[in-house]
C-alpha cells in the first residue's frame, strides 16, 4: 500500500506543514488561549502577556517536544534497521530504563532537589551506564542476538531497581508520585535549560543523515551488506552511538515516553516504503509531529501524562493501519 515514488516525494513537505500547524496549535492552546495573531505579537515581544506565556512556557515546551519526538522517531528507525525487525524500539538496549533508574535514584535520594540540572544529569548517567553495560555484556563485535539478550536482561534488572525504589517506602506518596510522573513522561514546565540539554539531538540527527543508504543494506542482512561493500562494524558502532545519544537525551528532558519509536517509523514505512534515505528525515519530522499532537491532546484532556497519550493515540491508530495492510 506504500505510495509510488512520485507521491512519496510530497510526504515530507506535508509532514513539515502539519508539524508547523501542530506547533502553532501548541503555542495557542492552554489556560490562556492565544490567537495566531497574538502568538505572532508575543513572539515579537509586542504583547507582554502573550510574550511571557510564549517565551517562558510554551515555546520551550514546543521545542522540547519537537526535539524529543524527532529523537525517539529516528532512534526507533535506527533500532529497526539494526535489528532487522520492524518491531524493534529505542528502549531495547536499556537506554530508557537506565534513564528511569537514574532519575528514580536521584529523586529518592534527594539529589533531584538540589539543582534543576541534577535530575536530567542522573537520567543521562543512567542511560549511558546501561548501554555501556549492555555492550560489555554482549562483548564487542558480537552478533545482534547477544546484544538483544543482554538488553533484555539489563532492562529487567533496571526495571527492578525502579520498582524497588517505588515499593521500598510506599508512605512517601509525594516522592513516589514524582517518580511515577517522570516514568510516564511529560513536557510541562520545560524551560530553556531543557532545550539546551536536548541540543545533542539535532547534532546526532545530522550525523545520522548520510547513513540512510547504508542502513538500507544493513536492514536486509549484515553479511550481505558487508559483501556489498558496507563497513558493517563501523556502521553498527555509529548507529548504536547515535541511537543512544538520541534516546538518552530525549529521556533526560521528558521522562520515558513509549510507543513513539516503535509506531512512527512503522507507520511511515507503510506510507513511503522502506528506503532509509527517505525515512531518516521523515521519522525526525514525524516523531516530532506525533509527540506535539499527543501533547496537545494531553493538555486538552486535562493534563493526561504524555506517555499515556502516546500509547492511547498511537495504539488504536497502529491497529487500524495494520488492519488495512493486505
Amino acid at each position: 500500500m506504500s505510495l509510488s515514488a512520485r507521491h512519496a516525494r510530497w510526504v515530507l513537505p506535508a509532514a513539515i506543514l502539519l508539524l508547523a500547524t501542530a506547533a502553532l496549535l501548541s503555542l495557542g492552546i492552554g489556560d490562556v488561549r492565544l490567537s495566531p495573531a497574538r502568538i505572532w505579537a508575543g513572539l515579537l515581544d509586542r504583547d507582554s502577556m502573550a510574550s511571557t506565556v510564549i517565551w517562558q512556557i510554551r515555546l520551550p515546551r514546543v521545542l522540547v517536544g519537537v526535539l524529543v519526538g524527532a529523537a525517539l522517531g529516528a532512534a526507533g528507525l535506527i533500532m529497526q534497521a539494526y535489528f532487522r525487525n520492524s518491531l524493534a524500539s529505542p528502549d531495547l538496549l536499556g537506554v530508557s530504563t537506565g534513564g528511569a533508574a537514574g532519575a528514580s535514584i536521584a529523586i529518592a535520594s534527594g539529589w533531584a532537589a538540589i539543582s534543576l540540572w541534577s535530575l536530567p544529569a542522573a537520567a543521562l548517567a543512567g542511560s549511558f551506564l546501561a548501554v555501556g553495560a549492555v555492550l560489555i555484556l554482549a562483548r564487542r563485535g558480537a552478533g545482534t542476538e547477544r546484544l538483544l539478550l543482554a538488553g533484555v536482561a539489563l532492562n529487567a534488572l533496571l526495571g527492578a531497581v525502579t520498582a524497588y525504589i517505588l515499593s521500598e517506602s510506599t508512605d512517601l506518596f509525594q516522592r513516589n508520585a514524582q517518580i511515577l510522573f517522570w516514568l510516564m513522561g511529560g513536557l510541562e514546565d520545560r524551560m530553556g535549560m531543557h532545550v539546551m540539554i536536548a541540543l545533542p539531538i539535532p547534532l546526532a540527527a545530522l550525523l545520522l543523515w548520510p547513513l540512510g543508504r547504508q542502513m538500507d543494506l544493513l536492514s536486509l542482512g549484515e553479511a550481505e551488506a558487508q559483501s556489498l561493500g558496507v563497513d558493517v562494524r563501523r556502521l553498527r558502532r555509529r548507529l548504536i552511538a547515535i541511537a543512544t545519544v538520541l534516546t538518552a537525551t530525549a529521556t533526560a528532558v521528558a521522562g520515558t515516553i513509549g510507543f513513539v519509536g516503535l509506531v512512527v517509523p512503522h507507520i511511515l514505512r507503510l506510507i513511503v516504503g522502506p528506503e532509509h534515505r527517505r525515512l531518516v528525515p521523515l521519522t525526525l519530522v514525524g516523531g516530532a509531529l506525533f509527540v506535539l499532537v499527543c501533547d496537545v491532546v494531553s493538555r486538552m484532556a486535562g493534563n493526561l501524562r504524555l506517555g499515556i497519550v502516546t500509547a492511547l493515540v498511537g495504539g488504536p491508530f497502529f491497529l487500524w493501519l495494520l488492519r488495512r495492510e493486505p
Partner: protein
Amino acid sequence: MAPETRTLISLEIAGATVPGRIRGISLRLAPGSIVGLVGPNGSGKSTLLAVAAGILPATGAVLWADRPIASLDPLERGRSAAWVPQEARFEFGFSVRSVVAQGRFAHGDDGEGVDEAIAAMDLAGLASRPVNRLSGGERQRVLMARALATRAPLQLWDEPLAALDPRHALEVLFLARRLADAGSTVLLSLQDLRLAHCLDALALVEKGALRSFGPPSEVLTAEALASVFGVRARTVPGLIFELP
C-alpha cells in the same frame, strides 16, 4: 550481460580453518573457471563460501588476485566479489528493483547494469514488487540479480539452484558459463550432483575438510559417492534438460 573483463581475479584459499566447521582447506581457482562445491549437508560448503567472500573470519589466508583480503577496504571488496547467501530472507518490503540496485553500492550507486541483471534473472515482471512478498525461488533470483549487478569478477554463490525450477536453474548455470567465459571466477555450491557433473571442476568437502578437487569425473567416482554421500551411482540415460 557484459561483465567488466578488465580485472580478472583468482581466488586462493590457503589452510582456511574455522574451529568446528572447516579445517585446513586450500583451494586455488584461476580466472575464468567455474568450480562447483559439493558435499553432504553440514560438510562446510557454506562456511567455505563465507570465508572465501571475506564475511567469516578464518585462520589461514584468503587471497583475491594474490592480495590478502584483509588488505582491501570494504568498498574494494564490494567491487571485487559478490556473495549470494543460501537463504534469502527480507524483513522489509524493498522493491525487487531497489534490492538489485543495492549491488551498485560499492560503485557509488550508479545504477549501471541493474536492468540487465533484472532481465538476466527473468525478474522484469516483478521489478516493482516488494521482495518480502515473493516466493522462495523468486527471492533467490533477486539475490542472484543483485550479485550480477555488482559485476564483480569473483562470484561466490551458496546453493543458488536450491529453490529454482529447472528452467531457472539451467539459466543460472548458463549464466555462470558466460561469466566465466568473460573471465570471471565462479565458485558455487550445489546439491544436484547430476548438474555438478556439467561443471569444469568440483571440490568435494567432507566433514570440514577438502577430500578432492578436480574434473567431475575424477571427483565424483563411484567410490567417493558411496563413502561420502552413502549412495550407489550408475550412469544411465535419463531426462536431459536443455534451454529451447
